[in-house]
């Protein structure tokens, strides 16, 4: 709308013209005003002017013109329709005969606009073709009369009996004619009766929705089964007269109702009646009906002999039946039926090949194999294992094999080796934690050597089992296929680093030396802290070779690069990974701090990032974690996002939840695309509060999806996959942003008296005691007050206070175990036995117990 608005003077002048009866001039000026303003007020003024003009036309008995104008205004200004309805009644009352409407068409000089108005009226109002065909106001050979006569004849013909398609050509009616909708209607009715339902739908779609014939469209659509709209009483009568249900149809409806109710007695009775009727009225469909009945009964597990008796004989078990049965078993989702579906699909395959539906080794067989594999793959692992062992027991006698998903996928992929099938196999293998991932990848790679997915999997598997030459071989293939592949960036450096540390571990110093040379020659060897790794490895190699001077020199160089703290940490990580920890004693952090001041979090983060990249073992002693946590508030602003993230992972791995919480707060403060990552960290740092954990994870998933961080999406989905009680919780993007804001505001970790974000508006969970206990919300006597004289605690006969020299972390671990003991209902003796027996050498255990 134009912001300029309607000039009050202009409006006043137009209203004056209306009041004075000069409606034509008022309308013209109102049109001009609305054209220039385009506001709601100018539209109201224009509609007012139209309304007065229509009234004046009606007063002069110019009904057709008034009618046309009403249609025009209703079409252009839909908001004014209701107001114009008030004007339609008088029009209808004043509407004179059909002759009055069409008479002006005799005038050869009739204005184009007026002719269009009359034709529009004809299109919308004419519901009696015979009257138009006999209309005296037009000459006998007037095209409108001849068209109406032809249509009338065709309409009577198609509604009274079969008509040839050619008889409905009706060339005298063009698609621009006012009677074109009638032509479409007649053709639609013809197609309806001839059974050409698609043509019928096409003709119905061609009928102008504003035309009179359009009133029949819903009735025809309902009879076609395309619509369930409520029909007018006349339309309902028409439907009943045309499609009067036969006794067979009535029997089928009763059968449908019986199956919907699911009661055995009425089902069997309805089967008897339907089969009886089918024999009489549609015997060719009898077998198909019996097959469908058999399948529905099998789905409901009804007694087979009784069903066969009701049908007066079993149904034919051919490929058609087996396919329907397999689909039926699939539909129920019952694991037992899914197992049956697997078997029946295989039976179908054999029957279909035998009946000539398709070849035994073609794409159809591959599609079936994939279907069966997917079905078997959906079964819970314990059921699969049970079935496998049962099949193995039977195999010696019957030779029957259990349809193992691995074998089924393999068979399908070999028959039709396409990426989608292999990806499904791989996905199943990964999901079921089967050792088959490598096999799937291997078969995939053999069939499609240019696909990168299997090579990546094979590389990962080889690296995981430290088969580094093999891994390097796969990497070389990947580099050849796509040198820019993001997934292999930095892989060669990591693999060579792994080989180097392994050679140091095995004291193969010459090989380690050549590894170092190879690493140094890599193009990306100087990226980030990678040179530091090379130096740390050189220090270690020199130490292993017992060359102290060489080690000292390399260490000085390393300290110049990283500083003493990070050097100590990196050397510790490198030595631990190559099982040379004796050569890398990590001094307590306090001694380091005296020399260096507050840099522990930075050093830890830096080494964590490098360790993550090179898959080094970086298991920091608790004292270092605690020191990093203590110093974190003063150092966090100096850390990059990646360093924060690596530190967060380390805090979680060390079970230092408050530290992880503080890191998440610092990360969330940074904003940007990494927010999702730190929101997930926040959730993981409060994992004891399941609701908050799940909400944070789901919100992180949504935010990560929004920024296309697929890795994070997969990680967060995996974290909550097992929490079935939260399956129904869903978080929209807007809600995720709200969660983010709430978590940003909650800077302090949860405490007994502090307030955590409340997500009851997002999570509606069952509040029964069992479900709350399962979520850890009740039933834990230690949650509220650790120092109370709780009955359970008294029963356990715990010492009054902890030994003064017991480290806090040991006390915390002990407390966790005590909680588990309470939940399990263990006695103190049982608890002691579980905790200490079998863990210590006998002699030491005795001494310890005495102490």
């Amino acid at each position, binding site marked *: 709308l134009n912001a300029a608005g309607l000039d009050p003077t202009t409006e006043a002048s137009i209203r004056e013209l209306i009041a004075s009866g000069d409606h034509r001039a008022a309308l013209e000026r109102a049109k001009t005003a609305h054209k220039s303003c385009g506001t709601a007020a100018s539209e109201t003024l224009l509609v007012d002017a139209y309304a007065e003009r229509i009234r004046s036309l009606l007063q002069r008995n110019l009904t057709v013109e008034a009618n046309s104008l009403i249609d025009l205004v209703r079409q252009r200004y839909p908001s004014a329709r209701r107001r114009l309805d008030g004007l339609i009644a008088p029009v209808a009352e004043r509407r004179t005969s059909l002759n009055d409407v069409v008479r002006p068409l005799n005038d050869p000089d009739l204005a184009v606009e007026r002719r269009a108005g009359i034709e529009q009226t004809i299109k919308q109002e004419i519901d009696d073709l015979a009257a138009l065909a006999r209309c005296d106001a037009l000459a006998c050979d007037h095209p409108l009369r001849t068209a109406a006569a032809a249509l009338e004849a065709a309409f009577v013909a198609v*509604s009274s009996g079969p008509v040839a398609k050619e008889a409905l050509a009706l060339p005298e009616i063009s698609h621009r004619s006012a009677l074109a909708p009638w032509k479409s209607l007649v053709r639609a009715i013809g197609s309806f*009766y001839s059974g050409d339902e698609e043509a019928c739908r096409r003709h119905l779609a061609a009928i102008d929705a504003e035309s009179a014939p359009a009133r029949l469209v819903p009735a025809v659509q309902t009879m076609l089964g395309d619509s369930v709209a409520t029909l007018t009483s006349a339309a309902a009568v028409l439907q009943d*007269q045309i499609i009067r249900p036969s006794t067979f149809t009535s029997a089928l409806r009763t059968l449908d109702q019986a199956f919907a109710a699911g009661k055995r007695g009425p089902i069997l009775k309805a089967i008897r009646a339907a089969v009886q009727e089918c024999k009489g009225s549609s015997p060719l469909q009898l077998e198909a009906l019996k097959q469908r009945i058999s399948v529905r009964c099998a789905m409901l597990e009804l007694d087979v002999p009784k069903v066969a008796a009701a049908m007066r004989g079993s149904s034919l078990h051919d490929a058609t039946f087996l396919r329907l049965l397999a689909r039926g078993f699939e539909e129920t989702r019952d694991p037992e039926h899914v197992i049956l579906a697997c078997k029946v699909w295989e039976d179908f395959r054999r029957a279909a090949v035998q009946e000539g539906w398709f070849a035994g080794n073609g794409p159809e067989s591959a599609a079936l194999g994939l279907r069966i594999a997917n079905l078997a793959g959906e079964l819970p692992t314990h059921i699969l294992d049970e079935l496998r062992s049962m099949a193995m027991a039977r195999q010696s006698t019957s030779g029957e094999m259990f349809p193992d998903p691995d074998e089924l996928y393999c068979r399908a992929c070999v028959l039709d080796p396409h990426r989608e099938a292999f990806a499904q196999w791989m996905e199943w293998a990964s999901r079921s934690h089967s050792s088959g991932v490598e096999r799937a990848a291997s078969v995939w790679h053999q069939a499609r050597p240019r696909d990168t997915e299997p090579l990546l999997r094979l590389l990962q598997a080889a690296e995981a089992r430290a088969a580094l030459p093999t891994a390097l071989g796969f990497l070389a293939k990947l580099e050849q296929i796509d040198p820019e592949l993001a997934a292999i960036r930095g892989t060669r450096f990591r693999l060579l680093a792994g080989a180097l540390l392994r050679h140091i571990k095995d004291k193969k110093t010459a090989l380690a030396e050549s590894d170092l040379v190879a690493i140094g020659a890599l193009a990306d060897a100087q990226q980030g802290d990678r040179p530091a790794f090379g130096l740390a490895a050189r220090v270690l190699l020199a130490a292993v070779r017992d060359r102290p001077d060489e080690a000292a020199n390399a260490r000085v160089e390393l300290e110049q690069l990283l500083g003493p703290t990070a050097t100590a940490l990196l050397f510790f990580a490198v030595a631990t990974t190559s099982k040379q920890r004796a050569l890398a004693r990590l001094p307590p952090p306090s001694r380091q701090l005296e020399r260096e001041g507050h840099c522990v979090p930075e050093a830890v983060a830096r080494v964590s990032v490098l360790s993550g990249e090179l898959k080094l073992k970086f298991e920091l002693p608790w004292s270092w974690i605690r020191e990093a946590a203590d110093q974190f508030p003063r150092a966090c602003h100096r850390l990059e996002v990646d360093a924060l993230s690596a530190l967060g992972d380390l805090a979680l791995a060390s079970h230092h939840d408050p530290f992880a919480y503080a890191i998440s707060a610092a990360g969330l403060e940074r904003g940007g695309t990494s927010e999702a990552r730190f929101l997930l960290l926040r959730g993981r740092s409060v994992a004891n509060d399941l609701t908050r954990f799940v909400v944070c994870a789901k919100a992180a998933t949504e935010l990560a999806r929004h920024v296309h961080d697929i890795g994070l999406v997969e990680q967060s989905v995996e974290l909550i996959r097992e929490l079935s009680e939260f399956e129904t919780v869903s978080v929209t993007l807007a809600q995720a942003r709200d969660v983010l804001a709430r978590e940003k505001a909650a800077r302090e970790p949860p405490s007994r008296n502090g307030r955590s974000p409340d997500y009851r508006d997002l999570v509606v969970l069952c509040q029964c005691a069992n479900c709350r206990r399962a979520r850890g919300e009740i039933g834990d006597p230690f949650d509220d007050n650790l120092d109370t004289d709780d009955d359970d605690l008294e029963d356990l006969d715990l010492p009054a206070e902890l030994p003064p020299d017991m480290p806090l972390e040991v006390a915390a671990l002990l407390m966790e175990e005590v909680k588990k003991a309470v939940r399990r209902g263990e006695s103190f003796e049982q608890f002691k036995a579980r905790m200490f027996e079998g863990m210590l050498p006998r002699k030491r255990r005795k001494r310890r117990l005495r102490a």
Partner: protein
Amino acid sequence: MTANDVDPFEILGISLDASDDEIRAAYLARVRECPPDRSPDQFEKIRNAYEKLRDPRARIRHRLFSVDPVAPFSTVFAETSAPRRFVGPGPWLNVLKAK
């Protein structure tokens, strides 16, 4: 395929063993009959049907797995069991006149 779905082969007016070329030709012919500007709903159905059938593997899957085992009996066997009776123009005109 559920009871409410219309068979894509039927929409395109082709046989179950139609080739890629036949499917494409049938699709183009149907789009010419029902262009998106004149019959948007019909065009949508035609487009969806073509999407379901253009990939040979999807076509095979449709052919093999699209049967609906729980379709109502009265729908599956309706076409031949309920003949359409000719009733003359009167009942049709009554619907038109009852606004």
